[in-house]
């Protein structure tokens, strides 16, 4: 289980990293936390000729609210989300997600940017960022550009980044007010054991205003070849007063629009029904958090 040979590059500035990426092209892979890439290299599923380690670049590891967004630097470790009072108090969907990605040891190295750029439908952040309506910031030789998360995941393990671009930041819109003042979210995941990929998982972010769901976005994990936004389930919620019947309708819509593959984790029918149940529960939890200041994230998953 030894990775294939490669040449390691450790640039110390973004300009150097971009110059290396520009000259090496598709023979190079970016090494961030390495918690997906290194296992893939050990299995020889990935055999890059060059690795460009961006761990030595300054200023890619931060969490801050700015200009109406929570800005997350690409090299922010998953464990930093778990340790952040800001995330725990104001971003319950993100807080839920950060607690169930792989295991604590992996989360100490794994990065938010890597989890998204890897574009694995089994990863947890893609669904969460779809639900948040996040924006991805990429830097390349032509400067910086923003990519809407809805346009980011293009195929299995494929994303909208050009070969010479590096993902530098992810932005999540800030909630409107204090916890319980209308915005709420939740991530629910069923896995066979800690550290495994989801059998199915559901990310919900919504707003309740005057007793009506006025905004809802839902992302699904590992039940489609490309990270999936469950727009049918969203439509089942928007304009409705929250109720068990409405939550069930959203669950049934999500079960219908997902596209799971049968594997060791379960049959298609099982995964669809699990997606129905998780959607129903996650929506209920998000509504509870949106409407009650007491019902926030944190504590046991």
């Amino acid at each position, binding site marked *: *289980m*030894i*990775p*294939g*040979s*490669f*040449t*390691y590059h*450790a640039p110390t500035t973004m300009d150097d990293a971009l110059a290396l990426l520009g000259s090496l092209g598709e023979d190079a892979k970016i*090494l961030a936390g*390495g*918690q997906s890439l*290194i*296992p893939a*290299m*050990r299995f020889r599923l990935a055999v890059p000729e060059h*690795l460009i*380690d961006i*761990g030595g670049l300054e200023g890619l590891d931060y969490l801050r609210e700015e200009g109406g967004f929570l800005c997350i630097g690409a090299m922010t470790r998953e*464990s930093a989300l778990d*340790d952040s009072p800001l995330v725990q108090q104001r971003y319950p969907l993100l807080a839920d997600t950060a607690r169930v990605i*792989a*295991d*604590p*040891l*992996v989360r*100490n*190295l794994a990065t938010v940017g890597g989890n998204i750029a890897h574009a694995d439908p089994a990863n947890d952040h893609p669904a969460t960022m779809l639900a948040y309506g996040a924006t991805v910031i990429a830097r390349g030789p032509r400067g910086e550009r923003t990519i809407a998360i809805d346009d980011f995941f293009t195929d299995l393990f494929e994303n909208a980044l050009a070969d010479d671009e590096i993902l530098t930041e992810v932005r999540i819109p800030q909630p409107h007010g204090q916890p319980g003042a209308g915005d709420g979210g939740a991530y629910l995941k069923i896995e066979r054991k*800690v*550290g495994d990929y989801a059998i199915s998982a559901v990310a919900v972010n919504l707003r309740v205003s005057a007793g009506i769901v006025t905004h809802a976005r839902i992302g699904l994990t590992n039940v489609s070849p490309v990270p999936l936004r469950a727009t049918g389930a969203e439509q089942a919620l928007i304009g409705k007063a929250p109720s068990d019947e409405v939550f069930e309708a959203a669950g049934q819509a999500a079960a219908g629009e997902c596209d799971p593959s049968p594997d060791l984790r379960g049959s298609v029918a099982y995964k669809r029904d699990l997606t129905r149940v998780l959607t129903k529960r996650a929506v209920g939890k998000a509504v509870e958090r949106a409407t009650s200041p007491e019902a926030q994230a944190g504590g*046991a998953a």
Partner: protein
Amino acid sequence: MSSRSITVTINGEAVTREVEDRTLLVHFVREDAALTGTHIGCDTTSCGACTVLLEGVAVKSCTAFAVQAHGKSVETIEGMADADGTLHPLQEGFWEKHGLQCGYCTPGMIMSAKHLLEKNPNPTEEEIRWGISGNLCRCTGYNKIVEAIQYAAEKINSQSAENVGRNEDEAAAQQEVTP
């Protein structure tokens, strides 16, 4: 084949070796630094037997390249006991509470627990179970491991309370002599 010279400070001692770029940190620790207390269990980033502290943070050393640790510090199970052989409270806890049977997962468990207790000196049982959820044990059923970590937490806290008490006594004594 690309290789380079790297220096990693392992348990306080600088280790400089020529390594292939693809050398995993766990192989550097075991084969180049000859510290075989760090185990390889699964080779698939699943089991945590290879856990070491990298810059004080618990990581799976099978899932990092040695070149990434260049210029950084690594702590392994061999660095836990004092030079005179006095066991670290975590090692003592695993001894006293029978926190191991075959012992294969133990070095990784202890390194994970060290990082856990540094972040959270008074963890609940649930927080301990959560904190070691990246480390698999096939023998014990985990109960004895949790008890070992609880033992260590109590011992470390009582030691630091004694130190605080002593410092306060010294401070009080100094104040008395100050006119």
